[in-house]
């Protein structure tokens, strides 16, 4: 029997707001499952807590909607204990880059074959619009919440500097691209990171969502994803590069990153002060 995307949907109806980007992600992910002809019983979809973490329960799979920030360890345990399963982690920017940040570099170091999709809307939706680690400083919200003083994290530089062998970015509004990114990620033999710009229809203005979309550029067809320096360059840009930024060639050791970045005056996170430090001393 040929499986279609809808065959990977659980009975459960999503609770997301109308127009939420997460619907697109669910669609793109289930399409990729169908493309790879995966059996639902051999799928493990693990999530933490947040709007996007609800996605696990909407897939027909052995899914686990666990606790805030801890999806990666759970997925690691599942994949190591049951290597024949395809294991996918979905979650948001608060879940992954704030409370759960400590697990990301270690999941990458272990390089267990897991696809980790972060659905990044730049805020906490479930708790009604607070700033997240990726909220931009000039982001204006229409609710009476405190302003954002901290610089946002750059998730792609974070995972690249941790040695991630597969790094991609997509946008929830570009379904064919999403589908392709998930497919590529799940085919990668190690830990694969997919950053999905998802937006929030409730706590962001429509014009902000449009602005994010306008700032996206597909990587050119000539882009060489095996070149680490290019990936860092693409990840550092003001605009959002969409596509596979980095796919480490088979057999190649992870680049030694923090020092290399510091040598270029591009320590992570990028600050003007840090750029003035002598090479090799990232402070």
């Amino acid at each position: 029997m040929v499986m279609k995307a809808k065959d990977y949907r659980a009975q459960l109806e999503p609770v997301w707001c109308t127009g939420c980007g997460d619907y697109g992600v669910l669609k793109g992910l289930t399409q990729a499952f169908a493309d790879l002809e995966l059996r639902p019983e051999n799928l493990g979809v693990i999530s933490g807590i947040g709007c996007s973490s609800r996605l696990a329960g909407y897939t027909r799979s052995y899914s686990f909607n666990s606790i805030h920030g801890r999806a990666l360890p759970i997925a690691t345990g599942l994949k190591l204990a049951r290597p024949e399963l395809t294991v996918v982690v979905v979650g948001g920017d608060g879940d992954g880059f704030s409370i759960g940040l400590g697990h990301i570099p270690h999941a990458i170091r272990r390089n267990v074959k897991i696809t980790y999709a972060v659905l990044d809307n730049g805020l906490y939706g479930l708790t009604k619009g607070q700033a997240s680690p990726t909220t931009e400083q000039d982001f204006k919200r229409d609710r009476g919440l405190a302003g954002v003083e901290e610089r946002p994290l750059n998730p792609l530089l974070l995972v690249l500097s941790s040695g991630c062998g597969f790094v991609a970015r997509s946008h929830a509004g570009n379904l064919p691209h999403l589908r392709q990114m998930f497919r590529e990620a799940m085919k990668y033999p190690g830990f694969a990171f997919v950053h999905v710009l998802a937006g929030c229809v409730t706590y962001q203005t429509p014009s902000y969502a449009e602005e994010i979309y306008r700032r996206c550029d597909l990587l050119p067809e000539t882009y060489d994803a095996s070149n680490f320096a290019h990936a860092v360059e693409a990840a550092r840009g003001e605009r959002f590069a969409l596509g596979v930024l980095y796919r480490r060639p088979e057999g190649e050791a992870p680049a030694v990153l923090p020092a290399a970045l510091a040598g270029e005056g591009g320590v992570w996170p990028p600050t003007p002060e840090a750029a003035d430090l002598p090479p090799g001393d990232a402070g």
Partner: protein
Amino acid sequence: MSTESIRPIAARAGAAAPAEPAAQAQAAASGQPAAPTTPAATESLVLALVGSGGDGVALLGDLVLRMAAQQGLYGIMVQSYGPQIRGGESAAILRLAREEVHYEGEHADVLLCFRVSDLRRFLGSVRVHAGSLMILEASDLAELPAWLGKSEQATYRYPFATIVDGAEVEGDPKNMLGLALLTRALGWSSSLARRALEQKFGKRPAVLQRNLAAFDRAWRAKDVPALPLLQGHGVPLHIESGNEAVARGAIEAGLRFFAGYPITPSSEILETVIDELPPVGGTVVQAEDEIAALGMVLGASFGGVPAMTATSGPGLSLMTEMMGLSSMAEVPAVIVDCQRAGPATGMPSRTEQSDLFHALYAGHGDFPRAVLGVFDSVHARDVMNKAFHIAESYQLPVLVLSDAYIAQRREIRDAPVDNRGKPRRRVWSAEHGPARFKLTGDHPTTPFRVPGTPGGTYLAAGIEHTAEGHPTADTTVHQEMNAKRFRKVAAIAEETKDWYRTLGREGAPRGIIAWGSQHGMLREWVAAHPEYRAFLPEILSPFPVRGLEEWRRGLEWTCVAELSYQGQLHRYLSGLTDMSGVKSIARSGGVPMTLSELEALLNSAGAQ
């Protein structure tokens, strides 16, 4: 319930009669060992070995323990160190006996000390009695501390240290002279010692040769005292630490996935599974923290694989949210907590029984769990089997409370036999119906769905869920699902109602309630004091209340003895049964409770 038969064990050996007149004996470079006179036989001997880093006290203790095990003697060895990471003061206290022992005693029959000043650190842990044999460094005439006690026997002094121009230089290893003296004093053969060295250094021939040569030179020492004869049963026995027993018991019970984070005093569990789990097809991960460790365990167990982590108090604190997830999502997990003195960092290498409240109550929301306690390293293998049985059968978190005293000491025991049943999870198949969390029939649990099973896909969730596993905020469902999950506790309580141990004579008028590592000392207390009996739960939650109440019948005086400032067990029991009139003799941990301390505490609590 198992009422242990009481094996009388002499609390201490009789006075060691030196074979030679007390003298400032010197080890000679040549000459034959003096033939020892025939000493009295004994049931048990306590040896205290004290020195500094580099003196090789730990190795000496290890070798003596190996020699004892080789000839069928039982024993226990407790080690203690100064605060330094490496080097510093070190003590090994060994008790060797003809019967199984789980308590090292409090008075050494032999004190072998390479440097008197090193004794300072072991106030309360090392004491001598009137008949103790003291073996000291010939060049160290420092006064012995008063708290050590007085031996009426002459002190033997040997030149352990090599002194050149008044300063100590590197010479023959002190512990090899110590090994030769102890072996001869015990009346054991030199080949036994040589074999222990070969076992220890078999893979390092240069080290072996150096030690063997030093041992042979030392064997010719003159004027060696003799100790009472302590003979083994002839059949070699097995040496195991509490942490090793926990790890091996878990593997025997079916453990196939372990994730942990290094922490004193539990790290040897991680180290043992690293060596011994992969060969049976299991996986071990050193996690980035304890939250991740239990997270990985839940992931593996969600995948249908029996899984466990081990930690100490600070790690258990971090795992608390995950414990609730394990219970809520009904994913089995075994969590071993080697308790140490807390709170916060506390005293990492020191024992305490103060994580009981945490194990029983920690976590937000109402959720069922089971809590077991370990008595000693022999018991540890049984307990781990029971822990996996409860976790796998009832799909909830099971905490196993060990402590620093059990975890790191080594015991000589009978060779372990793996004759316990293998814990099994009730596994789902299509005929069980579509709802993961719907109770049917008399089962206290719903069948577990193992990923890979066609048609069984479902959502496991920390969020409240319906019987189908769908997230819900319906208060009626919440009440029903709590009832569903807590139904397991009643079933566990019924199954485990006899999971306790009593010590002493039935009908004895005075009772001591205790748990965990107090067992070894209490076993000897009731043997020596027939007016006492003791009750120790093997399962702390659900507590075998009926068994306790039955045991209490006829008692005239009762107390709870524990190493917790708050008296956590006493307070806990006060919520389960009538504890009026039951005294609490509780103190902070640090060093384990000794027989004489117990006696003093009982007296001050008005035992009568």
